[in-house]
């Protein structure tokens, strides 16, 4: 499919602080693409570069086949010339205009005739579920309603590209969940290309056709479908960023792999490579605790009742890991453990990384197995 956005070798610095260096990324037409990364990773800067609020120091950005930024050629089209829609984190609904006037503004600028403006505006307002509130001022709306107005305003002119800068962050949890499905629905209906920026992996997974994970230094670690990112993380950073992560340090001796300082051989699928030190990463839900059977033997250090879940901290040969079992299942299968009890842990889905690559992540930020 044809690319709608193409970013080639873009660099951007503020003084001595380099936000992006030689970044390359492209997004096909009609895709809902998410830039996911921790706060301060420069994802908003990238969005602002695409919108034209900032100019890159080097590189090239094109939207829909038109080069919009290319410092080498002296090209930098201002935001109003890029045919975009954008929704801001703080809504940015103009407080002196009614809902109708806010949504109508892009069409008025495009000099559409009155009848068309009014039809399109009412249609778009209906689409975001705000019918009947056209005459309200933003001060008379709730946060969620203001966000809908901002969304309608961004969609009304049918832009080639819709940019969303953490638009759900300031909403409460229920509304956030509801809105993210609505945005996805609207995107499908309008067949719009969406670039969504967030630090919330749940929103990113629910919304995106594809997503890119960006680290603190502004580097893109992995690009792929939500399933690929979640199931096939390329490195511990991505794995760690996508959910609660456990990392077991594993050593290789000959053809055998051992956890921590123990002597239990690991029976599961093994990595390839001649590295000596490895980490085996997994989610708490991918580890199954039992009284006996296949798996690694360990000791329950701490059993915590969390209502729907039982959470266990287990020690296997000096390595700590966390696993959880649904409480009713634990009761049904006799999997209620007490502190100090012996147990066996079996794994579904291990991700193998070289130990060196984990150290790099630990240096930045990681939530480790022990809590």
């Amino acid at each position, binding site marked *: 499919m044809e690319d709608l956005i193409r970013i080639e070798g873009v660099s951007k610095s503020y003084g001595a602080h380099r936000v992006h260096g030689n970044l390359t990324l492209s997004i096909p037409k009609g895709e809902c693409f998410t830039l996911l990364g921790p706060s301060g990773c420069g994802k908003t800067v990238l969005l602002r570069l695409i*919108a*034209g*609020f900032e100019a890159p120091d080097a590189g090239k950005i094109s939207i829909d086949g*038109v*080069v919009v930024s*290319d410092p080498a*050629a*002296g*090209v*930098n*089209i*201002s*935001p*109003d*010339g*890029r*045919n*975009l*829609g*954008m929704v*801001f*984190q*703080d809504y*940015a*609904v*103009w*407080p*002196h205009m009614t809902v109708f006037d806010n949504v109508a*503004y*892009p069409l008025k*600028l*495009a000099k559409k005739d009155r009848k068309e403006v009014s039809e399109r505006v009412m249609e778009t307002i209906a689409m975001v579920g705000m019918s009947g509130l056209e005459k309200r001022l933003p001060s008379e709306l709730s946060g969620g309603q203001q966000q809908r107005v*901002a969304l309608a*305003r*961004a969609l009304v*002119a049918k832009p080639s590209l819709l*940019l969303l800068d953490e638009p759900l962050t300031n909403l409460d949890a229920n509304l956030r969940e509801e809105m993210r499905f609505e945005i996805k629905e609207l995107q499908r209906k309008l067949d719009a290309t969406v670039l969504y920026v967030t630090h919330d992996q749940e929103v990113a997974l629910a919304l995106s056709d594809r997503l890119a994970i960006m680290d603190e230094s502004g580097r893109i670690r992995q690009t792929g479908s939500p399933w690929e990112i979640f199931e096939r993380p390329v490195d511990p950073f991505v794995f760690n960023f996508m959910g609660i992560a456990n990392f077991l340090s594993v050593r290789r001796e000959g053809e055998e792999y051992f956890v921590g300082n123990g002597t239990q051989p690991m029976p599961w699928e093994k990595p390839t490579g001649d590295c000596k030190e490895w980490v085996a990463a997994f989610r708490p839900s991918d580890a199954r605790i039992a009284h006996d059977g296949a798996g690694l033997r360990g000791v329950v250090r701490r059993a915590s009742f969390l209502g729907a879940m039982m959470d266990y901290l287990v020690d296997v040969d000096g390595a700590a890991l966390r696993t959880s079992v649904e409480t009713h299942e634990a009761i049904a299968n006799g999997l209620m453990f007490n502190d100090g009890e012996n147990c066996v842990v079996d794994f579904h889905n291990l991700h193998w990384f070289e130990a060196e690559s984990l150290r790099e992540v630990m240096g930045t930020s990681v939530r480790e197995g022990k809590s």
Partner: protein
Amino acid sequence: MNTVVQKSRFGVAQIILFLSISILVVVVAVPVLLILFNAFWVNGKFNLNDVIRIISEPDTWQALMNSLIIAAGTTVGSTIVGTFFAWLVTRTDLPYKGFMKGMFLVPFMLPSFIGAMAWKMLLSPRAGFINKFFMTYFGLSGPVFNIYSYAGIILVEIMYLFPFVFIQVCGALERMDPTLEESARISGAGLFTITRKITIPLVLPSILSGALLIMLYSMAHFGTVAVLGIENGIFNIPTLIYQRIHQSAGSFSSIRTGTVLATILVLTAAFILWLQGKILSRGHYQIIAGKSFRPMELKLRTLRMPLFIFCIAYIGFTIVLPTVVIFLVGGLKTYGLPFTWENLSLENYKFILFKYKVTRDAIWNSVTLGLSAAVITMFAGVMISYVIVKMKVRGKGILEFLGMLPFSVPGSVIALGVILAWSGKYGVNLYNTVWIILVAYIARYMAFSLRANSAALEQVHDSLMEAARVCGASMWQTLKDIVLPLVRPGMLASFFLIFLPSLRELTVSIMLYAPTTRTIGVAIYTLNEDGETVVSAALAGIALIIIVTGQLLVERFLGKKAHR
């Protein structure tokens, strides 16, 4: 390919920046630079000796000293009066505190030179009503008090300037967290100790900052000294500049003396503002919270009624009495007649409003000048503030520096600078026209406009403007559709902050007026000097009515908006 190559050198941003810098350069920087240039350059050479010679001339030296003496006396007096009343209305159980607070702010509205005229009528050594009363009925051989003296000038200035300290200290005392005092009380400190060790140190920055404002104002103050000092030959810097320029009709040596004095004023003002900034930035500990607390109230007990009567007497004596005198004298057939019903009429008021060309012209001039200056300065101010607050362009630093200038240039300096710049020496001659007054008003009131508009612009979040740009609005459309409607309240405020004071302006207009371009202030002052006391008083009365009504209307109108 349909790419657009940006004209990166000269975009809209550069045009706005250029315009903003030009306005400040032409209106403020050039006049100030010309003053410095004329003060230090003689015959094309830098000459410091000549500057020292001018300063050591007896007249100039005396004026300098007088400015210092009057400013020092006024500052100390106003600080004591202002702090005392502020404490009374915020921290004690004085009756009718709200009303009192309002009354203590009234002198802000009243032009001090009109007040000085009233006090001249009351306390001039021979003809003053109070002095005459005592000499006639108590057989005193001399006056009770001679207003034509340092003490007289200082007392009158205190009456009109103490609100600067009063309002600052009231604010600080009202915002101060009462738990700070309560915890001292729990620790066993008595009320006197608390006041000395806790309260005063905490509000000291506000007191000092108000005091410095008064000092700045008094050093450069023209009206009171002009009305009360000239009789006994007491000149301060602004009145000496005026006298020299006025008498010598612009001779070179008088201009030189003027520029040297003006330079001293500018430097003093800059120093005072710097000092104030330092005190405020160091003194604003976190203790003064933004919230409104209910402060601890001191029970005045037996002192309650005496202090209440004292406040009423103070208000009556310093605000009501002079105002009444102005209106009564304005109604007299001839100055010197006793106030009896036969001698009082509205004839003078009708005369100045409907018949007398001088006063009718003056009212017309002041209103048109005020309106034009307010409109121009409002728009210029919003543009310049926009660049300073919102825009990211290279060269903004210059503008930020230029934007500070209007705050530190006193009125008489602006007037002198404007004479130097616009008297034909550099191609444009506006001297003796209203235009020169307009230019000077714009320079004088630019600071007000910058302050009000910057505050308003800071409330407009960047994303509101960015949202418009993404919707397809150009920079101009964004300004027109988004920014201007949102800063309208700030613009309106700056309009009235300029229009109302300009109606009573004296310092600048007195240096620049021609026979047909008198303003209200100039007309009142010159009529009074020419012995037309009753007409002058009547015009002063009319001016007071216009100013006070205007102020009340604005407060009602804008005050409501602010509360919404």
